[in-house]
């Protein structure tokens, strides 16, 4: 099926070449970072995790969201989703690859990464993150590839794939729960030390991932002859809506606990993010923009007429992606470290090389996504007789 990836339109190749350029710039900057050290980033002693880990956190959510397509089809027999489970699985592959890459570029000694496997530490959540992410990647590659191959040949996929599919469903929940555990078990970080972190992560994953998938489905319909289907997209939009409602609700719950209790340790991180502290307020406009986009998303998606009309549906989904990305990909990590354990505020902002490496990794993910979706849509076109 790989041969489907090397035949494509000018647009397809133009897009891949553009992505390769971005990857190249990112790789060059990574080599610079490899030799100079992470000092070229904006991270420091106080804010010791930054853009890279924030992107990893966001993308684990996107990866987990594949289950939102797989679960209704396999557990609830929602036949319509049979058309697009492969898209969810392929998006998961691209997302997990980006997660692994973001973790790797964030390491101080990337060449020692194999130590995580050589000296396993079950007490460490990073160990379990390595286990679940690797497992999820392997699962999705095996399932996706075999199901698509079978579809192409017009036969049922081999029987051994079925238990793997059922395994991938709780596994998807586990990858994002484990990632939340990275944060919610740290005794000194009160912004993260809350049981609802895992629930927030899952709800945010299940709106941002399917929203991204929906946007990509529109692109698939626009650029290929495969139509994911009107009913499928409508159901996906409903899933995004419910998940976004939960996501915003959980956030409001956190706000209540912090501000009704009036405990400074709980309030201060929200104050830093939404109104600034001691003159440091670079994130404030971003966080309020996220709030505006979240409200816009809810209005467009809850209201049935705007949710069903495709152009407003897309705007709603884009608003979900933007709002969740700012919340998780910017606010969460930086907000957790600021103020620091001494209640001092240290500024963090990514540097240019840091942003370029980040874009390089995103481009790698989109490259893999493009190639896989090209294969999937070409196979479906072939089966449909185009």
């Amino acid at each position, binding site marked *: 099926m790989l041969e489907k990836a090397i035949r494509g339109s000018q647009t397809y190749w133009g897009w891949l070449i553009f992505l390769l350029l971005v990857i190249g710039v990112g790789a060059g900057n990574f080599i610079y970072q490899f030799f*100079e*050290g*992470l*000092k070229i*980033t904006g*991270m*420091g*002693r*106080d804010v*010791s*995790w930054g853009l890279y880990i924030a992107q990893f956190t966001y993308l684990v959510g996107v990866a987990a969201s594949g289950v939102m397509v797989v679960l209704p089809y396999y557990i609830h027999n929602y036949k319509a989703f049979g058309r697009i489970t492969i898209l969810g699985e392929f998006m998961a592959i691209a997302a997990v690859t980006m997660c692994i890459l973001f*973790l790797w570029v*964030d*390491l*101080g*000694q*990337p060449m*020692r*990464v194999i*130590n*995580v496997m*050589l*000296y396993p*530490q079950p*007490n*460490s*959540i*990073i*160990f379990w993150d*390595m286990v679940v992410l690797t497992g999820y990647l392997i699962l999705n590659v095996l399932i996706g590839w075999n199901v698509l191959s079978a579809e192409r040949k017009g036969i049922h996929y081999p029987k051994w794939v079925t238990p793997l599919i059922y395994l991938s469903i709780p596994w998807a929940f586990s990858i994002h729960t484990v990632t939340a555990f*990275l944060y919610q*078990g*740290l*005794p*000194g*970080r009160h912004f993260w030390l809350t049981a609802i972190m895992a629930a927030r992560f899952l709800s945010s994953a299940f709106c941002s991932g399917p929203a991204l998938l929906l946007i990509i489905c529109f692109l698939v319909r626009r650029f290929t002859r495969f139509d994911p289907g009107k009913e499928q997209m409508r159901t996906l939009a409903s899933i995004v809506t419910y998940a976004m409602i939960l996501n915003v609700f959980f956030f409001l719950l956190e706000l209540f606990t912090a501000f009704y209790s009036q405990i*400074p*340790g709980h309030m201060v991180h929200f104050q830093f993010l939404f109104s600034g502290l001691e003159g440091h307020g670079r994130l404030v406009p971003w966080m309020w923009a996220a709030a505006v986009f979240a409200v816009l998303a809810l209005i467009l998606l809850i209201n049935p007429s705007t949710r069903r009309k495709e152009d407003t549906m897309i705007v709603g989904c884009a608003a979900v992606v933007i709002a969740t990305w700012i919340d998780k990909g910017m606010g969460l990590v930086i907000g957790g*470290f600021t103020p*620091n*354990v*001494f*209640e*001092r505020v*240290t*500024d963090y902002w990514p540097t240019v090389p840091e942003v370029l490496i980040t874009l390089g990794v995103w481009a790698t993910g989109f490259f893999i996504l493009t190639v896989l979706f090209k294969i999937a849509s070409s196979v479906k076109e072939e089966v449909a007789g185009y």
Partner: protein
Amino acid sequence: MGMDRREFLRIAGYSALLGLGGKAAFELLAPGQIDAAVESVPLTVGKKWGMAVDMTKMDEQIMDKVIEVCHRIHNVPKVANPKQEIKWIWKETYEHTFPGQHHEYAAEKYHGRNFLLLCNHCTNPPCCRVCPTAATWKREEDGVVMMDQHRCIGCRFCMAACPFGARSFNYGDPRKAPADLNPNFPPDMTYPTRVRGVVEKCNLCAERLAKGQIPACVEEANKIKEGALTFGDLADPESQVRTVLREHYSIQRKPELGTGPNVYYII
């Protein structure tokens, strides 16, 4: 002296016996003693090392001296970017050392006053729990929270987990730190530097403990004022450090988190 006479004699005895200043081979022990000595240094096993910082005796001069000596003998660099500073032992004001415990009508003698901070070598350290490679771990023999820079992958999870901000990361190559800030680097030729991309922190002078010497900060502080820092075995009720804690009121940093810090502040 920062510890009692009996402990001092024991340590001095072993120092003489093992006198290993890193020199080449020499015959020093009878066959039976050699085998005994090849085990972990006896005075370390079974201890629960702890420290008492006596703020009634501590002053800026002692703190500065102690920081200077520690950072010198461990080749801790001064890096160009203050946000990426590396420090094993440092000063922080009362309000920021004990966030949540201070109040606006604090006693004048502590209002804005500097305290001496270092790794607490906690009894239940979250940093060791989160390390994916056991590059940091709590030594069973004596409770020192150790760093293995051979194994550290630089993920900085331990830095996120430490509630006391005791850990620093080498964002760049320490040997490339500005020469004007680090004249004649590395200052101590008997101790290594680190490489870029690994975490470091106070190691309770494990290399000195192995030779029967007390941590350098304690030794230096006691040269200036006896009792400013007391080091010893918290598991021994008769040790100097336990005595000092029994006789004076002391506090810990963030006790409510349950990490069990083994550095106490007498105020």
